């Protein structure tokens, strides 16, 4: 009877040790192994990149009568009165944006999606470059430009 009790106590001790080791391992797995790596830089760079890119792009002076990209977008969304040596404002603005994107985001192999669309016609954008995967994480920047009849929206998503 006494021997039986002693072995029961030893089994309880073993169970406690196994439980403690398991809890310790679970703790390590939860807080160390499964810890998400920090992405401070990526978040900062992508959000800064998206907003700066559109901000700087809109201010850029084009080769067409010293108009900036904003002027060309506004004209493109309205009467298309600006003539750039036989090329209309829509073609000129798209050409400029393509050159800039080629020399920046494409060169750095960044995934992005750029769209410029009228408030009442989201399905037919004036400008559209790049494509992101549907499930990709996005840092997005949107700018609104008042045009003749409606508002023009410029959206840039930087994807990871």
């Amino acid at each position, binding site marked *: 009877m006494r021997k039986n009790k002693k072995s029961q106590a030893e089994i309880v001790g073993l169970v406690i040790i196994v439980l403690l080791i398991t809890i310790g391992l679970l703790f*390590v797995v939860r807080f160390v192994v499964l810890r998400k790596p920090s992405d401070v*830089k990526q978040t900062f760079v992508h959000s800064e990149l998206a907003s*700066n890119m559109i901000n700087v792009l809109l201010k*850029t002076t084009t080769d067409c009568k010293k108009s900036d990209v904003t002027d060309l977008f506004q004209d493109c969304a309205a009467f298309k009165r600006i003539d750039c040596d036989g090329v209309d404002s829509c073609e000129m603005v798209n050409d400029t944006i393509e*050159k800039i994107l080629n020399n*920046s985001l494409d060169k750095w192999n960044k995934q992005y999606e750029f769209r410029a669309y009228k408030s009442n016609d989201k399905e037919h954008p004036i400008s559209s470059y790049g494509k992101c995967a549907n499930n990709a994480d996005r840092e997005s920047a949107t700018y609104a430009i008042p045009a003749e009849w409606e508002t023009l929206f410029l959206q840039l998503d930087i994807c990871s």
Partner: protein
Amino acid sequence: MKNKKSQIKMFETIAVLLIFFVLIGFGLIFYGRIWGATIQDTEGENFELKAIQTAQLVSFLPELQCSSNNDDCFDILKVEALSKIINNIQNKNLKNEYYYDIFGFSSITIEQAYPSVVSWSIYNKTTEGTKAKSSINIPVSLYDPNLRKYNFGILTVDVYRK
């Protein structure tokens, strides 16, 4: 007989203690490794933060900023002047003391991407045995006061770690 039994008991106790200390040893090694990895992660994170800090410092450097409308804008004349001054061998102290205190081991380049491609190296100080490099690209407006035009530029900041 009783003597032999107590000897066995003693060996049993020694064996248990031995296993106990071996387990503690393994635990300490495991903990040390994980702690080392965590320290490396923190070091990497601090390095990334340093790169961001340097990029922000350059963005708001009065030596480069446009005089008016200075949001994300550098004046091309200022960029050319600063590049010449810093990279002039006669101004070695300016680079090695004043700007080194601000930028440390890094490389700062401004590149015009539209309408034509032009590049200026503002500051470049590397170190032997560089272990890691962190790069940041920030789009900036480059104002040409002669033509009163805003060009599209890119500020590239590379920060090095020993």
